[in-house]
């Protein structure tokens, strides 16, 4: 019992530190990647001076995130005289918390058997095996959609309680846009559910460790390349980032639904956005990129397409899986940032037209084709 608790706490600590780490690192990655993409150098002035010396650590501008955090913590927490102070205060948390909760069902590694890791641990843990996931739930994917749907409430609360017309406009835009794209998001994933026959994310990842046609890794993106594209586009729209950042639209609405927020409350909105980049990366990795496994890899080791099998010790497997997951998530995050710094913003009517008249029919068509194909193959 205590052993289970220790493992659960360990996983929770790992997940939270990974998310916070990604949130912090991504602010830096976004700055630097944007700079490198446009022939610039990027933020490089914040430094930490080692006390009593003149040694200044710049580290490629890595400390700008700390400077940002300090600025947000030390700024005046300006509050508008709003008639619903409670909703105003609670809104950033309603945006921020569900984003963290989504990660609870995402598997970030295969099975962890402490006894196989280090023999003395076996005395305490027995030969128990734990899936590296905070909550092993059958309804994994449904939980993801349930929680990511909650962020709409936060955005609407923030816009409504700020008693500012710009905020209200931004919130209305956020609401309509997120609801539209959530539909597309769900429909793209339905194809995968049909193929794998489960909504348990860990089971989905295990399905993807096989091969297709003998040599291709059986990743979701191989089965459903179309759905993967639509999923990524809809997910970026869910995150309200350029090219879908109409709810914020600096040139029209100042900052949209968080116009009236300052200091760390605004920071929470921003941080939630950056963590959601990582969450989207994690979901995309889990659903379409084979999750925590390298190609042709499973908990036992590698099963290469030529028929050769490479067995790996348990410790090496665990480390490889954790590292692979982080790397894949990072690559997807970086790709999202590439999109963000490449495409211009849509017009508002174009955003909704794009969702309802372009992506939704495509997603439905994809679903129909998948359903027919699955029925054909199974029968």
């Amino acid at each position, binding site marked *: 019992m205590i052993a289970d608790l220790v493992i659960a706490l360990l996983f929770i600590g790992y997940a939270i530190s990974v998310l916070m780490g990604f949130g912090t690192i991504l602010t830096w990655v976004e700055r630097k990647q944007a700079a490198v*993409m446009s*022939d610039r*150098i990027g933020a*490089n002035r914040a430094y930490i001076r080692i006390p009593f010396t003149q040694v200044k650590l710049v580290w490629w501008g890595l400390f700008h995130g700390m400077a940002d955090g300090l600025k947000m913590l030390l700024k005046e927490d300006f509050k508008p005289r709003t008639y619903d102070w409670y909703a105003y205060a609670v809104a950033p948390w309603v945006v921020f918390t569900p984003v963290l909760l989504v990660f609870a069902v995402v598997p970030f590694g295969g099975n962890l058997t402490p006894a196989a890791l280090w023999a003395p641990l076996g005395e305490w843990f027995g030969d128990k095996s734990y899936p590296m996931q905070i909550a092993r739930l059958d309804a994994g994917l449904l939980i993801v959609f349930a929680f990511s749907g909650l962020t709409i409430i936060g955005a609407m609360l923030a816009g409504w309680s700020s008693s500012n017309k710009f905020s209200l406009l931004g919130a209305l835009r956020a609401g309509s846009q997120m609801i539209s794209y959530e539909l597309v998001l769900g429909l793209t994933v339905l194809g995968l559910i049909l193929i794998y026959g489960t909504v348990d994310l860990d089971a989905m990842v295990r399905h993807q460790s096989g091969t297709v046609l003998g040599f291709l890794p059986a990743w979701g993106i191989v089965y459903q390349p179309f759905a993967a594209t639509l999923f990524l586009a809809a997910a970026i729209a869910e995150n309200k980032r350029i090219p879908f950042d109409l709810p914020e639209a600096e040139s029209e609405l100042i900052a949209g639904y968080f116009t009236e927020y300052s200091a760390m409350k605004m920071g929470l909105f921003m941080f939630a956005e950056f963590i959601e980049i990582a969450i989207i990366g994690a979901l995309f990795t889990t659903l379409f990129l084979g999750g925590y496994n390298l190609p042709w890899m499973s908990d036992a080791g590698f099963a290469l397409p030529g028929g050769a099998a490479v067995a790996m010790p348990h410790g090496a497997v665990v480390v490889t899986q954790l590292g692979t997951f982080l790397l894949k998530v990072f690559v997807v995050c970086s790709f999202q940032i590439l999109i963000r710094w490449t495409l211009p913003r849509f017009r508002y009517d174009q955003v909704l037209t794009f969702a309802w008249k372009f992506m939704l029919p495509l997603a439905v068509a994809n679903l129909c084709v998948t359903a027919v194909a699955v029925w054909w193959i199974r029968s």
Partner: protein
Amino acid sequence: MSPKPHVRKRYWNEPEMGWYERAYLFEILRGLWITGGVFARNMFKWMTGRKGALTTYYPEETRFDYAKGNRGKHVLTRRPDGSPQCIACNMCATVCPAKVIEIEAGFDPDDAAHPKYPVRFEIDYSRCVFCGLCVEACPEDAIRMAKEVPALPGDDRWAMWLGKAELLEWQPQADVAKPYPPAPPRAKTGERP
């Protein structure tokens, strides 16, 4: 009265989109290919120890390709006896569009030819626009501009004032060659004076 239906204006240079552009995805991929290519190229440069950017680290790294005609620093010329040629007439300070020159005039009864001289002569380089009007306005050829640039970047704008002493003593190599009064042009055939 029914409102007039809105007719969108058609511009002569409106882009015409074929099915390829309308499909949207291909053009997005092309854009991503371009930006991703720039990113990969610059990143490769950074990782192989070269500079993958067009911009400069400004204070540490100044640009080497200033224009040939660039004049970035003022020089106060001197008479053969070493005193400044400036007679503190304030013409440069008057003509200066950025109002950066401050002169305090002094009286020197011993020098009958030039009784007026500058006690203070200060230029605020944080505001100077380097237009060169002071040089044109000067009746005594007392102020000139040299090709060098002042190495003044710093955190403190009060440190960007240059006083009389610096302006007099700062003699760049390019300017020392010009004597005062200017040497008469040599009349050699085939050579510019």
